[in-house]
């Protein structure tokens, strides 16, 4: 019941343009997020707080013009965010490109909608 309520609230927020919708490709966030999962993201300008360690985030890749879905592993004193993959064998993240600026964080994942098996 709680799940259903969350879905209604989140999809409602998305319908009111308070969430951004992304489709996640790739396996680097497994088992949390399987490929072809939809996520709803609360944009940073709507967040009442900064990114916390442990948040799932969508961020701009620092070196390529793509957006990436990663786990915020830690937040530095200067606000920079270390992004890591939940499945470290299958992804490039801050181990390769270093911490990213907080301004590159698009938002925090508020709802994960996996493809039904």
């Amino acid at each position, binding site marked *: 019941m709680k799940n259903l309520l969350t*879905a209604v609230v989140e999809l409602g927020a998305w319908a009111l343009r308070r969430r951004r919708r*992304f489709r996640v490709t790739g396996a680097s966030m497994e088992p949390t997020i399987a490929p072809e999962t939809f996520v709803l993201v609360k944009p940073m300008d709507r967040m009442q707080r900064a990114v916390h360690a442990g948040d799932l985030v969508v961020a701009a890749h620092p070196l390529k013009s793509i957006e990436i879905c990663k786990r915020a592993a830690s937040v530095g004193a200067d606000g920079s965010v270390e992004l890591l993959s939940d499945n470290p064998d299958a992804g490039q993240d801050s181990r390769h490109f270093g911490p990213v600026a907080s301004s590159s964080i698009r938002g925090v994942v508020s709802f994960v909608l996996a493809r039904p098996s």
Partner: protein
Amino acid sequence: MTFSYRLLAAFDRVVSAPVADAHCDGPCGVYDPSSARIAAEAVLSMTKKIGDIDMSAPGAHNTYIRFVAIKEEQAEITKRELNILWHDYFKPNHLEAYPDLHTTFWNATKQASACKTAVDVGACEELMSQIEAIHNMFWESKGREVPWYTAS
């Protein structure tokens, strides 16, 4: 949840969602040193065949040039495949377990260059043994036992 997913999936067919990449690097962690091994075996084989050409036979020069071209190409592929393992698969944390990781790869890629430049069976055999060491390091880092083998 199925309904919610279908709703978003249906909407996605009309207005596709932007993609949030969770790999950034092609096919999701599929690495295997056998790609480098196969190319290096081809270099070894072509090096032996170049030495066996009877240069007085008709068409020998054509055969010689073809073999050299294949050897050069395969040596280049060997270097590329080693670089993919070195740069993309191995991560800084592997250095703790394999402190000579960089030296191993540096030597192996330099050896592949040496095999490309020269016609030297010994150099090719040395390259194969370096790739065997990388094979062992790679599979150990993945916690798997994969015995070394060659195609020829």
